[in-house]
């Protein structure tokens, strides 16, 4: 056999068939996998597509026109929902609550987490365990007592009465996530800053916090989703329409305009645009957050 053969020797026919069989089986498996996953994905997306297309129809066509692609899109539905449906007010409120709660959770829980991780003081472990255990124990009735308390403190139907309990709600996860993060940071940088004359707060502010950015991002996204989607507390706290966030506004709108589906769907679409945007921008952090929150429990 000459050495300079360009083509490798052909395998025996039997082996060739086995290769074909193997490839066929792999293709079939891949085909099945993709068909299955794509079906489920379509099932996830279709209700949302349907929602958007319904929001562009009119009250008279929505019940007869079942097409997904709307011929004459009535974008004015969004204008009416925004103005007459008061969604501009709800939107502003939701935005305000989300920003304030997220900032509050990050500042307060990072301060506490830094102290629990790096500083020494009497009662440290007791306090830490006490606060984290609220994350583990389900207390479904506590909103009744919270409501009573807010009434007593004259915080019912006020913005602050809605914001403070929600900041508190985010603390357990925040302290837990950030403490585990600070625990893993090398101590050397902070020692160096201490020797250069930084006090405790300056070390926290200028050394520890800048390093903790990834964990802070996870926390921010996680809390933003939770506050934006919150309903139960908003229902208990608010009686005035001009203080209500979006979720509460949607239910109020549904109650008073029961059959105005196009406007309602326009309102729903408005309410999810920021959340979808945030989701696509910060998708990595969200996935990191749920797995961290769940798997480390």
């Amino acid at each position, binding site marked *: 056999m000459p050495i300079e053969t360009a083509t490798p020797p052909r395998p025996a026919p039997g082996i060739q068939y086995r290769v074909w069989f193997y490839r066929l089986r792999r293709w079939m498996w891949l085909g099945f*996998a993709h068909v299955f996953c794509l079906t*489920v994905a379509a099932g996830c997306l279709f209700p949302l597509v349907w929602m958007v297309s319904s929001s562009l129809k009119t009250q008279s066509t929505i019940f007869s026109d079942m097409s997904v692609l709307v011929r004459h899109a009535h974008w004015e539905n969004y204008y009416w929902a925004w103005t007459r449906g008061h969604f501009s007010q709800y939107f502003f409120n939701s935005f305000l609550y989300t920003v304030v709660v997220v900032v509050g959770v990050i500042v307060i829980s990072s301060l506490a987490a830094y102290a629990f991780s790096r500083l020494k003081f009497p009662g440290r472990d007791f306090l830490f365990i006490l606060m984290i255990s609220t994350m583990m124990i389900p207390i479904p*009735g506590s909103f009744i007592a919270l409501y009573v308390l807010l009434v007593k403190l004259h915080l019912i139907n006020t913005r602050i009465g809605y914001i403070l309990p929600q900041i508190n709600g985010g603390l357990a996860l925040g302290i837990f996530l950030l403490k585990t993060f600070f625990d893993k940071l090398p101590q050397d940088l902070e020692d160096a800053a201490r020797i250069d004359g930084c006090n405790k707060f300056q070390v926290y502010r200028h050394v520890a916090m800048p390093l903790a950015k990834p964990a802070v991002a996870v926390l921010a996204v996680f809390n933003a989703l939770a506050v934006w989607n919150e309903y139960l507390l908003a229902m208990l706290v608010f009686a005035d329409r001009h203080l209500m966030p979006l979720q509460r506004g949607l239910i109020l709108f549904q109650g008073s305009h029961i059959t105005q589906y196009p406007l309602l769907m326009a309102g729903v679409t408005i*309410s999810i645009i920021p959340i979808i945007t945030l989701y696509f921008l910060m998708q990595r952090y969200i996935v990191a957050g749920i797995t961290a929150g769940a798997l480390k429990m």
Partner: protein
Amino acid sequence: MRWARFKDYCTTYLFVAPAVALFLLFSLIPFLKIFQLSVFDWDGISSHMRFVGMGNFITALFRDPSWWISLRNAGVITILALTIQNFLALALALIVDREIKGKNFYRVVFYLPPVLSGIVVGLVWNWIFDGSHGLLNHALELLRQPQWARAWLADPHTALFSVAVIHMWKGFGWGFVILLAGLQAIPRELNEAARVDGASEWYIFSRITVPLMLPVFFLVSILTVLGTMQIYDIIVSTTNGGPGYHTEVPITRILNAMTGSNRFGYACSLGILFGLILLAVSMIQMRLSKWSSRFS
């Protein structure tokens, strides 16, 4: 020296003071308060509170059938979520864990419903399940099966099941993400070594994947139970407990006792009973989880 240390502690306490203050005011005090309120008959406003001892609990356990109905309804949805929703999540996670194209696309799409609020999901599905003009009934008409068409959320036979479908649609992506993270934490070498030794796919699944994933399975099921039993937003935006008591769940009953009929003490006792049930379930599952971690 002692003065310096005292000053040092004081500044350290400033770090934890805001967190501790909020925690005491909005977590610990309400938690203790519900135990106090649960033994009183109180309308929430008047200064007079009548002590009734265990009366509220006795009423809840023996004289309030709607409470048991609500627990049963939530239980039915939970069992459906534990089986159908989690099996779907596991099947998808197992597929996507293999090297297939579009892994990231699937992950993004499947996790889309869980980031939406229960209110939004409920309102959209309300419109799909609508009795006269809903999408589902139209689809049935197109398939020439109009006899199946009905007001899905208003019909006593289908209301609870329809709510469960909505809940599972919203929830499976969450289970998928956690199960996928668990699967990807399994070292690849284990599977490959088994494959080189001639193990079949089923053998790898049952002898490597399942034992290593048991703690994650228990975690997902515990969180599914806790989340589903406390279902509320989807109920409010679709059926609001109706028709009759067919989709009442514990949280709607507690709220009804509280804001509907102004029986705050009774609402607190319902909350405590419900909390104990959830605690018992989590204890059992934590035991199982600890037991199962011996395998990995």
